């Protein structure tokens, strides 16, 4: 065990790469999700068709298959990516498709009356989206986005298979150097768990802020005075 702990610089380097890929992939996925999600909630048929095409294609392809394709196949037709770019692109495209479904669903879930009120107030379509629909949709998007972020973080482990020195890759190296199989993999699993917990906390913080911004969350501690809602199974 102590040998494994001695190689913590390697482990931390790996964790840093994992965090980097997670963040870059998440940013790319978020941009794609918003763009294609809004298109999916649009009225124009061609915009919705673009959304369907993107979502079905990239949601259907497994991230690893996409990564292999970018990394091994496309160079043969002249498109060359660095491993890092291939990894971020594959993860971003894949999770962007999942995110686009979340965005589309959230926009459609905003009550119709909000939309009608915005029309009645003579807001332009862009204003309607930016000032009325999206702020409310964002509150609905955040919890599923939190789940997707954790999924994305977990999916970054596969980048070790296209030779990127992330946490999993480092685990294999440390295992080979020390021969301590159980300790190495257990430690790496714990590091992943810690990263996931931190991400989860951050998303929850964001959720609380958004809800307070929309006036949906009462002051701190007030929730405890409210009686528990009826229904649900007894434990």
């Amino acid at each position, binding site marked *: 065990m102590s040998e494994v702990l001695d190689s913590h610089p390697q482990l931390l380097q790996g964790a840093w790469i994992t965090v980097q890929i997670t963040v870059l992939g998440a940013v790319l996925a978020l941009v794609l999700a918003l763009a294609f999600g809004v298109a999916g909630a649009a009225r124009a048929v061609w915009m919705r068709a673009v959304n369907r095409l993107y979502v079905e294609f990239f949601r*259907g*392809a497994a991230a690893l*298959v996409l990564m292999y*394709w970018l990394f091994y196949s496309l160079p*043969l*037709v002249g498109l060359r990516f660095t491993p890092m770019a291939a990894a971020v692109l594959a993860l971003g495209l894949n999770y962007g498709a999942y995110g686009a479904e979340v965005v589309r669903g959230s926009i459609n879930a905003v009550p119709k009356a909000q939309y009608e009120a915005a029309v009645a107030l003579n807001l332009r379509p862009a204003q309607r989206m930016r000032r009325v629909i999206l702020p409310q949709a964002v509150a609905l998007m955040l919890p599923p986005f939190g789940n997707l972020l954790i999924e994305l973080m*977990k999916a970054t482990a596969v980048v070790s298979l296209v030779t990127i020195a992330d946490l999993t890759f480092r685990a294999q190296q440390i295992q080979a150097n020390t021969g301590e199989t159980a300790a190495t993999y257990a430690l790496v*699993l714990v590091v992943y768990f810690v990263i996931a917990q931190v991400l989860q906390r951050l998303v929850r913080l964001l959720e609380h802020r958004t809800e307070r911004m929309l006036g949906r969350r009462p002051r701190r501690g007030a929730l405890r005075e409210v009686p528990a809602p*009826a229904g649900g199974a007894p434990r």
Partner: protein
Amino acid sequence: MTWDWNYTGEILPDLLNGLRVTVVATLLGYAIALVLGLAWTLLQRTPSRLVNGTVRWAAEFIRSTPLLVQLFFVFYVLPSWGLTLGPLTAGIIGLGLHYSTYTAEVYRAGIDDVPRGQWEAATALNLPRRRVWLGVVLPQAVRRVVPTLGNYLIAMFKDSPLLLAVNVVELLGAAYQTGSRTLQFLEPITIVGVLFIAVSVLSSLLVRRLERRYATY
């Protein structure tokens, strides 16, 4: 370099063999996930705080760490504890264990969704615990979550390529092998991508039908 149809024809049998392994791994793993997931859910409902807490944290741990590392763990660590597994078995167990933490959440949601009146009626009828669960709660709970469970089958299918990391020659592994033998990666991996997309588009249509069939609202 252009697409080579002759080559495509030559490698197709190998790829179909790989697809068979993928399908077998997915289905067996799914069976494990369905059974184990239900066990997790029921264990989380026992009155013992210790059991509840342990199961909840174990499930949370498995759910928020990568499947790939878990596969390595099952494949490389368990042998040192005296349990040697073949690659495919290790892969199936890893897949099933990982996804059982997801199906556990699905079952939990389904059970929470059973109206309170059903529980009260079961109590009023003085049904034994076994019949409350097997006769009243689970049939209603499982029915509600069939489409969601279907989604996890698709998700599992898409995670099955990870098995190549523990030397299982499944679909992507077969494609990679033929690719490295001939140094032509374009055709095999493209075919794998197309197959994956085809299967998941078809199966998502199927799940949508399930949703309509089992809709409770």
